[in-house]
């Protein structure tokens, strides 16, 4: 069976927020390594990452040296 009717729920599936009923269809496809479902899961992971990245809560810039410097220590001039 085609998995395109599941198009709108991959993000919720990845986040573990989809009902058992809706999850089972995707789980079945993913279990069979359905290329469409794997591609959509990659997009879903990208979307969740992007939400957190845009809010500065993850990613390379969240751990840039300026943000990692101990607080309260003044730079010498």
């Amino acid at each position, binding site marked *: 069976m085609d998995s395109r009717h599941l198009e709108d729920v991959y993000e919720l599936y990845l986040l*573990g927020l989809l009902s058992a009923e809706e999850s089972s269809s995707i789980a079945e496809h993913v279990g069979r390594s359905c290329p469409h479902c794997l591609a959509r899961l*990659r997009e879903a992971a990208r979307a969740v990452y992007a939400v957190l990245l845009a809010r500065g809560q*993850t990613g390379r810039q969240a751990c840039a040296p300026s943000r990692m410097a101990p607080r309260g220590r003044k730079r010498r001039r």
Partner: protein
Amino acid sequence: MKPAPTLEELLARAAERDGDAFRELHRRLAPGFVELARHCVSNSRVANRIVEDVFARFRHEAKLLSQARRSPEVWVTLETRARAVDWLRAQEGLPGWARTRLESLPADYSWLPTIEDAASLDARRPLLSKVLRQLPPSQSRLLELAVCGGLSEQEIAQKLGEPAGKVKSELRAAFSFLRHRLRAVVGTWTAGI
């Protein structure tokens, strides 16, 4: 002076059980992920413990991620978020499915974005912020409750006192909007964003 190794180089070395490379990855990445966990759980001690647990597991997964060229940042992000929201839900006496879901996915990480894909998102962070700001405030709030609060559509509807159908359609619309915009962001086409 020798340039600092890239994350990709460190990941490849960590995959070969190079302890120095792993410590350097931890030094560079962990503080950002503690912030993410703290944002979700509002508890510094718990946030630190979550990230240490994630990195303990990351040590074992580094080889697979490196071989498959899958993004370590996205893996750590999803794992940190999953552990944080499962902890949050446990505090409310609710079952947590986030980690179970990640563990149910193919072990070859074919479902994760590649290193290059994640790096291109990192490089376009200002554009991502702009995309997020284009969402209606109500949808932005729903995304926050689902991604960082770990609440299902039904639980969000109960929390906000809104009809479940409305929450469902708005949250799915928010993800749909993001999905389509991200296809443009990671491609070369950015007109109209």
